[in-house]
């Protein structure tokens, strides 16, 4: 929404990607990062960071700590997270 400062156009930010619980074990890592590109959505982030694993059907996705669907658009600098159904409480 806010216009980016000039240097944000010059220094590319990246997408911070987090995997939790059984997905962390499936992917083999807790954290990844990737370069931002136009038109990126959450499922594309999965494809590029998941070591070719299929996304389990019940996977939950979040951008910047809010639940989103897999086709939600990703912005430069976002934190994208993937995790299985929750079991707290």
């Amino acid at each position, binding site marked *: 929404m806010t216009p980016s400062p000039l240097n944000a156009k010059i220094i590319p930010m990246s997408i911070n990607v987090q995997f*939790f*619980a*059984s997905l962390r074990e499936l992917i083999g890592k807790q954290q990844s990062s990737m370069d931002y590109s136009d038109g990126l959505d959450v499922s594309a982030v999965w494809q590029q960071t998941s070591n070719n694993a299929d996304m389990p059907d019940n996977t939950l996705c979040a951008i910047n700590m809010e639940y989103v669907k897999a086709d939600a658009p990703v912005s430069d600098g976002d934190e994208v997270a993937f*995790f299985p*159904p*929750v*079991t*707290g*409480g």
Partner: protein
Amino acid sequence: MPAILLDNVFNPWDEIQRYQAEHLQSGHYGATASFVGTMRDFNIDRSVRHMTLEHYPAMTQHFLDKLCLQCAEEYDLDDCLIVHRFGDICPDEPIVLTVAWSAHRAQAFDACRYLMEELKARAPFWKKEVTDEGERWVHNELRS
């Protein structure tokens, strides 16, 4: 109306008393409903020795903070409180506390339950149990 995440054993009854003494106005609330979830030493059919509760720290805090605010407003509460463990947990230790303070009992009961149901359904925590037969992730609980 805070949400508190702790990596150590806590006493839910002491938490309620401390919070109440520090934040609630004497003589104003008439109804306090609370729920404590405690780790059992059995789940389904296996004996559970201990459990690790993984979470997504920033999102868990954000989710529970928002839940408290929204619940307090929706149920017209005087206040509410969530305390939740993470990390290694042994049988008989409290995992979660939810409390709702209100002028009236219906709102207190409804709000306390709402906090628990929303937390169970959507707060990013994942339980891994260590049983006699090895480790396993806990799957969505069909039973409440």
